[in-house]
């Protein structure tokens, strides 16, 4: 944008003012579809669900104000506690493993001169299809009864799976779903690769001249230079992981079983809201999720100042 020239000519001033007003009109005109959507589909419903979370509402009779009752009931509800527990476990285990896999493969591919494009596309494919119902069905078929995974795990010394294979074993549904999310490491890998391309090669050359080994180069150059991308991936994947639904819903046959081992947060929210029609209770659950995700985001942003390096030249 060219800086507006300081001028005292009143005609000039009026002309720029007119242009400014025209810009404002045009700006809001162009923004109006999004603005309408933002108010009607996001901001409005958020306020409404905040209100509903303080009421008892079943969709058929009017909402009855109950104050904090929903929130009090939440923390006394063993299903809620279970849902929160396994969701946090899933986030804390799945996200780091997935990101480490993504970074490792990105480093592997980054040195390649040939075939990089092919592998990059091939490894990205699971990210594109992994969230679909189709893949959830395949995953179930692979892990159920004496399926492939149960056989392989027995081969390497894991205990024999009971009836239902990993799908029927409450202790193994979590690893099964974590494997599914790790399988989809391709999307963060692609982002890491794009980040690695921006690291100037001279840095490595200089470090090599100074006698820095590969580990040092990774810790001192790659990681700091990659930290903005790492931060972005960590934030998006964490928020994403909190909202796991499709795979757990399909694999458990819409029950959250066996023994509530796949009763993830959003699954339980869905049951309460759209199976039992306890809209107030479900709204309270949604707001607890928003607050938790908001806090996680805040903490990530706050701590990012300590470990994310934005190099001077970049925006």
């Amino acid at each position, binding site marked *: *944008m060219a800086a507006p020239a300081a001028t005292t000519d009143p005609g000039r001033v009026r002309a720029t003012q007119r242009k400014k007003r*025209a*810009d*404002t009109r045009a*700006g*809001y*005109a*162009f*923004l109006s*579809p*999004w603005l309408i*959507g933002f108010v009607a*589909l*996001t901001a409005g*419903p958020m306020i409404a*669900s905040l209100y509903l979370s303080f009421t008892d509402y079943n*969709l058929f009779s009017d909402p009855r104000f109950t104050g904090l009752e929903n929130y009090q009931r939440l923390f006394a509800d063993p299903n809620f506690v279970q849902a929160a527990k396994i969701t946090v476990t899933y986030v804390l285990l799945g996200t780091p493993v997935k990101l480490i896999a993504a970074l490792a493969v990105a480093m592997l*591919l980054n040195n*390649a*001169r*040939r*075939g990089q494009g*092919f*592998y*990059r*596309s091939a490894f990205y*494919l699971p*990210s*594109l*299809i992994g969230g*679909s*119902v*189709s*893949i959830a*069905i*395949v*995953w179930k*078929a692979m892990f*159920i009864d004496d*399926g*492939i995974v149960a056989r392989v795990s027995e081969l390497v010394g894991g205990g024999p799976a009971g009836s239902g294979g990993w799908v029927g074993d409450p202790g193994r549904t979590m690893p099964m779903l974590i494997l599914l999310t790790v*399988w989809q490491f391709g*999307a963060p890998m692609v*982002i890491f690769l*794009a*980040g690695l391309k921006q690291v100037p090669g001279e840095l490595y050359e200089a470090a090599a001249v100074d006698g820095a080994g590969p580990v040092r180069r990774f810790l001192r150059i790659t990681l700091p230079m990659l930290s903005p991308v790492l931060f*972005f*991936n960590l934030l998006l994947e964490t*928020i994403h992981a*909190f*909202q796991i639904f*499709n795979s757990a*819903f*399909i694999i458990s046959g819409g029950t959250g079983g066996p023994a509530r081992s796949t009763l993830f947060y959003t699954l339980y929210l869905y049951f309460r809201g*759209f199976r039992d029609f306890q809209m107030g209770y*479900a709204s309270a*659950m*949604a707001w607890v*999720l*928003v607050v938790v995700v908001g806090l996680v985001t805040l903490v990530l942003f706050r701590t990012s100042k300590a470990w994310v390096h934005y190099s001077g030249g970049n925006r």
Partner: protein
Amino acid sequence: MSATRTAPAPATAPGTGAPDEPATTALRRAARRRGTRRSLLFHVSSLALLVVILYPAVWMVMSTFKPSNQIVGSVSPVPSTVTLDNYVTALGGIGGVPFWTFVTNSLVLAVASVVGVLVSCSITAYAFARISFPGRQVFFAGMIATMLLPFHVVIIPQYIVFNELGLVNTYWPLLLGKFLAADAFFVFLMIQFMRGLPGELDEAARIDGAGHPRIFVSIMLPLMQPALVTSAIFAFIWSWNDFFGPLLYLKSPRMFTMPIALRAYVDQTSTSDYGAQMAMAVLALLPVMLFFFAFQRHLVGGVATQGLKG
């Protein structure tokens, strides 16, 4: 331009032998040998990883040609006897509703989603990227925030309102957001692209007396074609794969899209008939796979730009 790029064959021609300035041949040969060994190591490890990563997909496709009782428990993807029975069963439809009804429903929704996303998101992106007006920063922050917001906090009131309006079991709830630029990912992608276009273009057009609608239609839209293509592909695939929205809003089997038809099918056929389930699962993924093979560079490129800048 249609970018149907066939993937280069892996593991052929290691050692690229880049032309470099004259050096002693011995040194060069040593370096090349080192390079060859390195790229051999790279290809071996990448190929091993490729086998592991693609195994589920290959196993899935091959299983559909096995007799139904030979799927679970077989490690080898190669069928001992090839049969098309599973596809015959799958194409037979569900509960009296023909299979092609679900395909048509999914297709109608996906195409409408693409249209909605392209129109609404490009207009919104233009406002954010090219017009300066008071309040722009605030709205921009609001838009970015919606990318991080768990959507569960809005679905309950949305459902209540759509229910009041009698719009449950129609496609309105699934499409409205698409026409109102509710998916910030696309807006953001287009903003990033527009910011990369030279500002002199607009300046020149404005001096010639063109207003914003004119600049948008005749200058921006043609130039941002790559971003539009990427957005269209993602919008199609996400709509096609969407499960939660249709699960909430579509009640009668005649309205079902592929993913919930698939789920209904899995619930209906008790555990035994994996063959038909898998065949249907493969058919449901077919359009996505076609898009992937045709536009893989656009897809990967779209993901890559998303993470940078911003």
